[in-house]
């Protein structure tokens, strides 16, 4: 029995299969370890986005080498495989121009760095947190917890707004007050409301702009700065504070009014 196993193991083809399998398993292990090492080394000086890229690059490069070695062990000629891959890639390139365009756009995105992992961006009508920046697409998680995949080509072509690039943001509130109101009193009241709100930054100071005379109101823009993380809370609390302050001071916020005249039709 044992003799037959030994003869079986000594068979050259089987030995090659075993060595190739071992090579692939070793490849997986070394690639994983290499990727982790890259993360540790680059953690201090590179962004999360670049670390992920380096990790993937090292992982697939190491794994590809071991797989090539395994194929070689199994008797495949690497030159033939590479040649076939070259021909195949040209054929695939022609067949998949969109993907190629996405890959090139992805390289531009990686080089230009308009946003990074964890940033919140707005593309068209979609706003969400960047989950990953890949060669073909960028993946977002929207605030209502939807997963959105945007092809890189679309991102390069369209306007992208990065909402979390800078540490502070400005909230522009546009509102109108009735023509009868004292605009100076309105100005003081708005500035005092912002001053009382701890989320509103003291510097840069809030800006009051009298935009002009609207159809039914005196149009105003009141701009207040907030810490990026507090922006949404400031937007809610400030508008609430302003409404309460206006109500307390008897300042009217007008709205368009329509007169409806009812006429009676006499039936004959």
């Amino acid at each position: 029995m044992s003799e037959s196993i030994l003869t079986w193991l000594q068979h050259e083809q089987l030995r090659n299969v075993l060595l190739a399998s071992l090579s692939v398993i070793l490849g997986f292990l070394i690639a994983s370890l290499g990727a982790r090492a890259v993360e540790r080394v680059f953690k201090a000086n590179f962004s999360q986005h670049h670390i992920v890229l380096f990790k993937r690059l090292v992982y697939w490069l190491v794994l590809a080498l071991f797989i090539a070695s395994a194929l070689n062990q199994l008797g495949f000629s690497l030159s033939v495989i590479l040649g076939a891959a070259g021909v195949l890639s040209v054929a695939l390139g022609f067949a998949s121009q969109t993907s190629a365009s996405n890959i090139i756009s992805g390289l531009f995105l990686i080089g230009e760095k308009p946003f990074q992992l964890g940033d919140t961006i707005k593309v068209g009508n979609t706003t969400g947190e960047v989950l990953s920046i890949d060669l073909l697409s960028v993946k977002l998680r929207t605030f209502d917890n939807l997963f959105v995949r945007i092809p890189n080509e679309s991102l390069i072509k369209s306007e992208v707004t990065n909402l979390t690039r800078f540490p502070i943001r400005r909230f522009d509130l546009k509102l109108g007050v009735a023509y009868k109101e004292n605009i100076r009193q309105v100005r003081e009241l708005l500035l005092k409301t912002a001053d009382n709100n701890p989320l509103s930054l003291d510097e840069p100071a809030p800006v009051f702009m009298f935009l002009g005379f609207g159809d039914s109101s005196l149009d105003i823009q009141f701009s207040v700065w907030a810490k990026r993380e507090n922006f949404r809370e400031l937007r809610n609390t400030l508008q609430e504070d302003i409404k309460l302050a206006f109500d307390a001071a008897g300042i009217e916020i007008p709205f368009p009014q329509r007169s409806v005249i009812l006429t009676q039709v006499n039936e004959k």
Partner: protein
Amino acid sequence: MTSTVTTTVTTTASSLWWQPMTFANNECKGFRIGALQLYLQRQAKQWLIATDTIHDDEKVPLQQHNLEMLPGHLQPQRYMFTKSPNVCRLVPQLLDRPVVVKTLQPVRIPPGERATFYISSPVCIGVVLPASEVLKSELILTDIAVQRLSDTWFGPSTQIGELCYADKTHARHSKGELKVRPHRAITPVHIHNLSEQMLAMDKISIPVPYLTLYGDLDGSLWTDSLTIQHKSLLSLASFKIDKLDITKPQTSTLLSPPRKTAEKHSLIRAFTDMLSD
């Protein structure tokens, strides 16, 4: 169910209010520190902490009340133990971000002149259970700001700078004018105008996370002092923190170490814009 709160004793607390206090089982105490009303209650297996805000914070020094139970309208935080430790300390700490203070009146320092200002900033109160038979090491239950200051940005542009807290100061220049306020720590700031122009100062950034906090015998809080040498509007203001020499006998005790330790160069960068003209 509505609970009633009975104040049995109302006293002005001991000046060294950061000393450890022993709580009997079910004992409840209230502390008024500036605008903060803090309630602590110890039960057999838990500590309860509740806070409230008072608007009139300037007139009253620190007060301590003994209560039968926590006020019913407050939602306390609960900290659970197998057997609750019976000793507690209130530890004042400086804020976690620099405080930018605006002077209430414009201040001018002529060329070659020196001036010392005493600028105060509100503190946080840490509720700490010291190491004991029950606890292996000191445990900070919570850290509560006595006063919620407004946020502000301090830097040359909206891209470069840092987030700070904003406050206003009288920029008093005499120790005699200082009020003892248990909820504010005083920082002595020495400014030396070495330039040939009048130095106008309307706001100053106090890097409180880098300062040590000390308590005095009268219950007042002091920090390390700052020295700023102003050479010209274009150059960096040379800046240093003067540590209190704790080896010498004095009345101050160290209450909390700096929250952050600054590297030499980063400190210079952070305070380039310390003085505004």
